[in-house]
């Protein structure tokens, strides 16, 4: 591992991991630094998981442009990397006369944004597509490109490819301070550990403004905008065929009802400005308001069981667009304010940021070979291991169901624990396999899974269960040559 990197990226969400992957095409030493114990643990894991076309983005913005570009890039990438997706299409429903009259302008906006297959449909067509919707729709806008994507697999896939192509990932490494020394950025992490790099990318999500301050800039302030969601049981999946979108307002895209690639149905999100960047708690008021909205759109939804509730925080700023800025003299790019479309725009953002870095003098010399990686499938659209006789014949653990609700097998759990970016926490396992995400929420399988995880990783169950109060997670450095994590080394 080098002592000085060509470039350091702060934050391993969808955005930071996509940037690391993009830069790993070139002959560069890359360090990806993440405060949490795994990649994709910030806003990237708590959103509505829609692969947006950008049809409703504000024309002329960077967001609109990058979403469009990203959409095209993702079409190839999700196939190559095996990211679960479902190309269902979105149905924006107008429930009032006023909303109905805004459809033409939304159509025009979509066309301006280059999303040309959008069309206005009648109320009859709305009900032909979605017979279970509540009565009273005036009509709608059909957006064939709006799709579902797995926001859990995506950042892991990006980061894995970055690693396979030489990048270094440091987990449990919150950057506490950034200073400049001899033309290098010196990033200080826990216990005074430092990382030195010639170039710096700030992809710290909710904390991107704070990192930006450390570099002397005050261009924007992040105000966390909480979005609460309810996940409904898989039996709700048969109620809808598309992403059911509301007519957006300037403040929010509104409450939608959407299937997930795991076969559930999401209802949400709410939109509420907070001042606490850690407040991912759900609230009684939020959940109640969702139930009311859900009942108004799809009455039968409320007869199904709730599988989970969660909340995510959008990195909203005082500006209407992404806050991506190159500070060429500082060899620094800030990637902030990626508010509500960052999963979809990730590949577009990555390509754009690489371009900015090149402008600031970072040499982008392609490597001879770029290694790709295919992720285990956790989506419903493709066969899962328990459905594949050839895989079970190879390894009976693929027929040994541990998580019954989600049909996750022992084989998949072991694979995740021993993958290039190994699952070392229950949450990491949950996002890699779906285990404990189902209708019983791990109540049947959690104990068995804690057992397996503790055994396979040599960790104390008390740590996995957060019973060990004094426990401070040690930084963990991962590279592809060395799957086995080295604890506490920099």
């Amino acid at each position, binding site marked *: 591992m080098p002592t000085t990197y060509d470039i350091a990226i702060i934050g391993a969400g969808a955005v930071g991991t996509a940037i690391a992957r993009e830069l790993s095409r070139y002959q560069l030493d890359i360090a990806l630094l993440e405060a949490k114990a795994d990649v994709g643990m910030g806003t990237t894991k708590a959103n509505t998981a829609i692969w947006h076309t950008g049809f409703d983005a504000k024309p002329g913005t960077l967001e609109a442009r990058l979403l469009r570009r990203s959409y095209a890039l993702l079409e190839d990438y999700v196939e190559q990397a095996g990211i679960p997706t479902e190309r269902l299409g979105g149905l924006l429903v107008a429930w009032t006369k006023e909303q109905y009259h805004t459809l033409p302008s939304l159509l025009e906006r979509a066309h301006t944004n280059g999303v040309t297959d959008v069309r206005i449909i009648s109320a009859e067509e709305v009900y032909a597509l979605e017979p279970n919707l509540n009565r009273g729709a005036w009509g709608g806008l059909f957006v064939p490109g709006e799709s579902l994507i797995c926001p859990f697999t995506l950042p892991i896939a990006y980061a894995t490819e970055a690693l396979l192509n030489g990048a270094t990932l440091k987990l449990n490494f919150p950057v506490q301070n950034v200073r400049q020394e001899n033309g290098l950025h010196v990033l200080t992490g826990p216990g005074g550990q430092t990382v030195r790099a010639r170039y710096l990318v700030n992809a710290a999500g909710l904390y991107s403004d704070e990192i930006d301050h450390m570099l002397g800039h005050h261009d924007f302030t992040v105000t966390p905008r909480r979005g609460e969601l309810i996940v409904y049981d898989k039996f709700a999946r048969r109620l809808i065929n598309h992403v059911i979108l509301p007519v957006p307002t300037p403040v929010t895209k509104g409450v939608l009802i959407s299937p997930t690639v795991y076969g559930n149905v999401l209802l949400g999100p709410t939109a509420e400005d907070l001042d606490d960047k850690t407040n991912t708690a759900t609230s009684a008021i939020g959940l109640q308001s969702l139930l009311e909205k859900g009942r108004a759109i799809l009455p039968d939804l409320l007869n199904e069981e709730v599988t989970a509730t969660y909340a995510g925080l959008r990195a909203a700023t005082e500006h209407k667009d992404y806050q991506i800025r190159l500070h060429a003299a500082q060899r620094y790019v800030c990637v902030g304010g990626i508010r509500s479309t960052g999963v979809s725009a990730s590949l577009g953002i990555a390509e754009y940021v690489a371009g900015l870095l090149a402008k600031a003098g970072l040499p982008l010399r392609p490597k001879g070979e770029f290694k790709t990686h295919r992720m285990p499938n956790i989506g419903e659209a493709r066969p899962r291991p328990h459905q594949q006789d050839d895989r079970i014949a190879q390894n009976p653990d693929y027929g040994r169901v541990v998580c019954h609700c989600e049909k996750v097998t022992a084989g998949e759990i072991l694979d995740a624990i021993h993958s290039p970016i190994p699952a070392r926490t229950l949450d990491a396992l949950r996002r890699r396999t779906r285990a404990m995400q189902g209708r*019983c929420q791990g109540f049947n399988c959690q104990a068995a899974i804690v057992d397996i995880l503790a055994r396979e990783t040599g960790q104390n169950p008390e740590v996995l269960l957060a019973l060990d109060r004094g426990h401070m997670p040690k930084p963990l450095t991962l590279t592809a040559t060395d799957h086995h994590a080295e604890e506490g080394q920099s």
Partner: protein
Amino acid sequence: MTTRKTDVLIVGAGPAGLSSAIALKRRGVARVTVVDREPEAGGMPRLCHHTGFGVWDFHRLYTGPTYARRYTQLAKALGVEIRTETTIVGWENAHTLAYTSPEGTGALHADAILLATGVRERPRAARLVPGYRPRGIFTTGSLQRFVDEHHLPVGQRAVIVGAEGVSLSTFLTLQKAGVHVAAFLTDLPHHQMYFPYAPGKWWFVDLLHRTPIRTNVRISRILGLKRVEGVEITHTGTGQREIIPCDTVVFTGDWIPEHEVARKGNLVMDTGTRGPQVDAAFRTSEAGVFAAGNLLRGAETAATSAQEGRFAAQSIAAYLQGQPWPERRIPVVLEPPLLWALPNSLAPSDAHQPGKMDFRVGQFVENATVEVRQGRRVLHTQRFRRLLPNETMHLSGGWVAKINASGGAITLRLSD
């Protein structure tokens, strides 16, 4: 995928499934196959490491695991084929179920199918309790697995949500794990824990008596980012809030049938029990498909489930011998505060088998009269000094003979 044939296929090797298999064998059915997704047969009692099992069916007091083993051994001795680690994943057609197992995928075809897949408890999310999602949130079932199956650490100080029979069993499990219980919570005006008969365990009974039981409160929030740090409770009458510090919360009771297989087969479901709709002979809406045990209505004692399994075996045997499937059923409809009834549909042929009808209410009701009607005709009234929530009440069933077989729905309600 290979398809194998059997006479009766039973899904779920708990007390209901195993007792039914045993009864079928005793009635001379040649091939009875029981599948279970767990590594061992026995069902829920396998995880209940306390006594209280077997009095009705074996005339002995057993612990859960011993009881589970007794049923399993008996079934095996009679030649029941038991396949564990075999998960039913769906239906190939009306009489063929698809499974996955370490030996591969496959399908089982049977003349008759009995679903006995048991229950699960509604977890925190399904109860819409707001707050963070830290570690340290359990249900009775997951707690038992932590303590008795995997011997994992639980915590130091727990709050038990619920104050009924199963909450008491949770208290016991927490004691064993060395966890102090800070309080029981219930939104009802009274608790329903009948302090156990525990010879020589006075210290335990004493401890229980000293544990606060908070009535008329509901859990309104969970605190703690990584690990539970406390719960906020709200008084249902005054709206007053209070925080109880704890590192563990156990949600008890609030059962929901494990109805995945039933629903995947598009069986008609009952909105009250959330299990498949059955008539008095445990017949579902699909010819040749039966259901029994906790799948029908949430948790009862193991003996109740086992008994249902045996009754279901009677009807399965009759069906195998050619008894026709009822062509129509009369639905049983309830008015609040009645929650559910079982059977929740009646076939005209049931008119000749007066049994009893089980039902539950959602609140305490003093001096109640339950009225059974068909249309305007009152078939039966029965007085109860007290109706209790979380407990199954029984209506005598002589009135079933008075049903008009071609008439409309049967209504159950409280009359004033």
